[in-house]
């Protein structure tokens, strides 16, 4: 009997499940979306704790480590197991070629350690600390020249791994900020367009069409040319966000308008009107919840294009500029074909761009499948 009762309760919870609960349940069944959610979770943890996870600071560089390949992590020093460690590098004049070559200095080892002390950083701008997740220990002779650079280093000898993390702070948040702005703009303008219709609708639609017909890269170029040089990173960040969202809201406004128009003719909206419910309540209770889920989907799907937008702007030197960094800035170096072929590890930031874009796309897909409460 207990079993039957349990079964009944399970059914009852299904019957009493709101649209959001059902959506959550369906999303749980979408494997790719779940995986994407996990990946995005990890990436955003990286955004929050970038200072802690990155072994080096944003502006740290080391002349010795220019353009070095990812550091090899070793376990045996002179045939003896001593746990994970790295060797430092040394310059070496090759007598035959007369070229300066960089080789591993195997005389001294630097053990890898968790929770090492390093540059100071702040988490979320609140908690200051100088403890890093991992780093190299001081060598036995007291030297600190051993460095661990998981993804290698760039031209100036900066750790690419750390810079990817710092870059994600911009590359993964600008899309959110700009999505939020376009969300507000899109809903407001789209609702006005859909609810009033007629002339207002016509004007708004034409504006959207004009905005949509401007090719985005020249538009960005024009807009960022208008950004005065020498702005602080924060201001630059805000301006780029606004530039990106000015283009994005058009799509959302269209979705909102279309949904408004189709939902306006649903029988349940007419039923409410016949029952004497006033317009504001109809909009809030019947229309907006009707397209909110679709909106979330379309916003999720619009984030990847923002990520790519920011990356391409920075890549073209129009967005964030050094010393601040974003994924686009990191990829800037790969513009040079020699860099590209000699130092392939400089392409690693690209992998993160692709990962984030794919994850958002799959999540959006999953949300879209889950959003239909009737299926």
């Amino acid at each position, binding site marked *: 009997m207990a079993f039957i009762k349990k079964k009944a309760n399970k059914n009852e919870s299904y019957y009493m499940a*709101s649209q959001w609960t059902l959506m959550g349940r369906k999303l749980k069944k979408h494997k790719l979306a779940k995986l994407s959610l996990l990946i995005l979770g990890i990436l955003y943890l990286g955004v929050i704790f970038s200072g802690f996870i990155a072994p080096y600071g944003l502006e740290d560089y080391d002349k010795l480590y220019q353009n070095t390949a990812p550091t090899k992590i070793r376990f045996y020093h002179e045939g003896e197991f001593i746990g994970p460690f790295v060797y430092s590098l040394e310059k070496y004049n090759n007598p035959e070629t007369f070229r300066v070559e960089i080789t591993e200095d195997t005389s001294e080892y630097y053990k890898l350690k968790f929770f090492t002390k390093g540059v100071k950083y702040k988490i979320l701008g609140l908690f200051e600390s100088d403890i890093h997740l991992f780093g190299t220990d001081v060598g036995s002779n007291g030297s600190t020249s051993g460095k661990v650079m998981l993804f290698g280093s760039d031209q100036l000898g900066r750790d690419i791994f750390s810079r990817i993390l710092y870059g994600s702070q911009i590359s993964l948040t600008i899309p959110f900020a700009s999505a939020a702005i376009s969300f507000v703009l899109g809903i407001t303008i789209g609702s006005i367009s859909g609810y009033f219709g007629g002339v207002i609708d016509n004007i708004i639609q034409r504006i959207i069409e004009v905005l949509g017909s401007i090719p985005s890269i020249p538009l960005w170029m024009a807009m960022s040319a208008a950004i005065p040089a020498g702005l602080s990173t924060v201001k630059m960040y805000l301006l780029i966000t606004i530039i990106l969202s000015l283009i994005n809201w058009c799509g959302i406004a269209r979705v909102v308008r279309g949904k408004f128009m189709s939902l306006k003719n649903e029988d349940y909206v007419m039923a409410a009107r016949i029952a004497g419910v006033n317009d504001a309540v109809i909009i809030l209770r019947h229309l907006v919840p009707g397209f909110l889920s679709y909106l979330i989907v379309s916003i999720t799907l619009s984030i990847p294009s923002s990520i790519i937008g920011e990356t391409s702007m920075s890549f073209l030197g129009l967005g964030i500029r050094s010393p601040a960094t974003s994924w686009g800035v990191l990829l800037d170096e790969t513009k040079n074909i020699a860099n590209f072929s000699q130092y392939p590890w400089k392409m690693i930031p690209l992998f993160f761009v692709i990962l984030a874009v794919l994850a958002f796309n799959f999540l959006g897909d999953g949300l879209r499948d889950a959003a239909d409460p009737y299926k």
Partner: protein
Amino acid sequence: MAEDYILKVENLHKTFTSKKISVRAVTDVSFNIKKGETIGIVGESGCGKTTLGRCIVRGIEATEGKVIYKSLHGKEYDFLNIDKKTMKNIRKEIQMIFQDPYSSLNPRMTVLDIIKEPLRANFPKMSKNEMEERVKDIAAKVGLNTSYLMRYPHAFSGGQRQRVGIARALVLKPQIIVCDEAVSALDVSIQAQVINLLRDLQKEMQLTYIFISHDLSVVEHISDKVGVMYLGKMVEFANTEEMFKRPMHPYTEALLSAVPVADPSIKIERIALDGEIPNPANPPSGCYFHERCRYCISKCRTDVPEQEEISPGRFVACHRAKELDLRGFEYEE
């Protein structure tokens, strides 16, 4: 006798206008309904019956005409043309039940909220408990299990959803209910349940129905009077039995002959109508039906027939109504 009505529809017109064309969906429809009666409105798709229903409840605005509602105190209001304040009081007297039990309930609200919404809109001062009491009363009346009220519509079958729609219409204690194809989307056995429910409720709450349907046997069963619509016009209006026994408009005759009868022993000679229903944006001259009518004479092609009261309460719009002897159904004695 003429004053004995609860709702009087007078010369109702509805024209849909888009940029280039205007379509007359409802043309000059007039009829009276007495309290407690059921009026059936039948016709084929595109004949304007749904538009007519929606104009009466002001789901859409009529272009022209009057819908006069006589309240219980004998006061008359033109429902289509009253000030906002009176409208607020009167609106709840005329409610509607929709065809599609799926699209007429908001999938994002619980059944309790759906039935409660009209109360919240019309009685803002009513306490929450009182509202829920009323919802429970009405839900029990329409045969919904009150323990299911917290469920969302997706948990209900078509028939149960239609009961929710009926409860929503009844919770304001209206006088008149427009049922727009209220049972058409339901399975046969469920249809019978809902029709029986509607009749029981009518008796209990002295409701007046305007029952819009394309299903003639359902209409014959439930209605006291029937109006037949063709291309936006009401071509015939009469007592149900009179009309089904002896239709007076050729279109009614053809419509009746086409009704499938659930009895293989009865063989009906069907009257085949030539052609299709004309485009309402470009209706024929004269009588709208003349191109398909087998009794058509030259007058029909040029003159528009007026609605005529052939016998008390029986209206026909046909030039030859008096001379024709048309065939209907045989009734058991």
